[in-house]
């Protein structure tokens, strides 16, 4: 496909500046990064998985997923990996409760 004049001239600015495009990853490395990130989320954000599973449908698979999600959250609780999640939620709750004049609800 031959480029026209307008195609050669940039119409708009790239969102990611060129200096940040010089180094990077290939698609396999991207997949690895996403998997590592997802595993971290699975370990540290397990508190939300039962709620997520509740929103699924009503099929046999959905019921099975709900059971797995509940079991997974229980296992993370046993390992105390849900503690940071609970601590952050409590801290956010306190921040939201704070009122002018120091009167906390």
């Amino acid at each position, binding site marked *: 496909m031959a480029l026209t004049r307008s195609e050669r001239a940039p119409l*708009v600015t790239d969102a990611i500046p060129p200096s940040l495009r010089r180094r990077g990853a290939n698609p396999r490395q991207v997949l690895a990064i996403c998997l590592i990130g997802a595993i971290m989320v699975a370990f540290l954000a397990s508190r939300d998985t039962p709620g*997520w599973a509740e929103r699924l449908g009503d099929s046999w698979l959905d019921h099975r997923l709900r059971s797995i999600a509940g079991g997974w959250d229980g296992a993370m609780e046993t390992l105390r990996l849900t503690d940071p999640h609970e601590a952050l939620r409590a801290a956010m709750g306190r921040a939201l409760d704070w009122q002018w004049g120091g009167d906390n*609800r």
Partner: protein
Amino acid sequence: MQTQFQRLDGMRRAVAAGRLPGVSPPDRTARPPFAPATSDMLFPTLDFLLFFLVVAAALATLDRHFAWKKAILVAASYFFYAQWDWRFCFLLAGSTTISYAAGLLIGGSEDPRRRRLILTIGVALHLGILGIFKYLDFLVLSANQLARMLGLMHELPFFEVLLPVGISFFTFHGISYITDVYRGDVTVCRAPLDMALYMSFFPQLVAGPIVRAAYFLPQLARPSAEPIPVAAALMLILGGMIKKVIIANYLATGLVDPVFAAPDTYGGADLLLATYAYAVQIYCDFSAYTDIAIAVAALCGFRFPRNFNQPYRAQRLREFWQRWHISLSTWLRDYLYKPLGGNRHGRLNTYRNLMITMLLGGIWHGAAWKFVMWGALHGGGLAFERMCQPLLGQRSTSRFGKIIAWLIVFHFVCFAWIFFRAEDFTVACVFIAGFAHGWREPVQQAQPAMVALIVIGLAGQFLPPSSFERVGLALQRVPYWGLGAATGLILAAINALGPDGLAPFIYFRF
């Protein structure tokens, strides 16, 4: 003509205000819940994470097969869109077919009259689809109101058309492609797969940014040789998640929604802070979506244009529009303002063109008089600014002058947002009238956490423009496993800090 989301969103606001019979207002000490969205396929959800893992796995497997990679992305995009309503996939396919066929016919004809006819038909078809789904019931309502004013008894029936998510965005894609082919600004796309991907690519499908054919189609011509900028993409995802999940969501439920639902029950301080809060909320919400869209596209190997550039630091209204929703403002400039004549035919015509452009830009956001007013304010503001250009001169160089200019522009933009956010035109007027009294009433909603979120949201507008690049360059030295682990850790923290439930992005309804 509401979407299910709009109905639920309205219900959520009504519940917040205690206006629904049999429903108690929420306990303000509790974490604000969100009504369920029509789809769970929103960026900040586990569903999207799982969806993207599958897409990333497919792209990694098909790295050397570019055509297959594009086919997988089209299939993924239609799957993504079907999560809202599978029937709308036919609409998207129809819009793609119109654009593809019109491009081929225009490109294959040498006759200027025939080319112009095809362009007109193509654009009219796109606008017709948009008009039916987005504006039909608004026109019926307006016609009925006019009939009542004229004393006519007959009323037209409403069609209750369901608004497809993102219809404005893919319509704009189609119109810009046909017009660019007609103008000779873009080569005719002869590959149906490329056209399908251009129209449906899932990161931008439902809320932009509006990506021009001349910018995106060349990226589909051959595989990119440059590496995937992972550090920048992850920064955009994390920044977007913080803006959406923490800042925008809490401001919405804790301050903006309750105050805008019943403005007559709040004092001046709550109204003022709710106005600032909405300015921060809509920026954080919309820029979060486009930041994540840009990042997801980058992780798939594609470039997207910049859509926001610290808009609230603008010292002129014109500058605001060069920084806010850049892909829409440049689209309106190139396909509406310039064809109307732009600034080429004298001052009065320039003011008229600015007004028409911004009015249509307002109506693009929705079929309601409040959006007409929002557009009229911006059009009038831009025209007035241009009229005063000889008096204002160049940008002020003194610190005091810059602060005054910034204050005027920021507050003008905030004032216009009141119309944009209010339930309707009448509520907006009640809201504005509320500023005239109640300044001694105690603050009800604008508690310290809300004020802190407003300050944090606005502070981000004044970070040095190079800060993103500097942090990105530093992160490029971190090993990939470290980037993945840190991203997962921060995402888990954002998830813990954010409110329960799902909150759809504001721009999904446009």
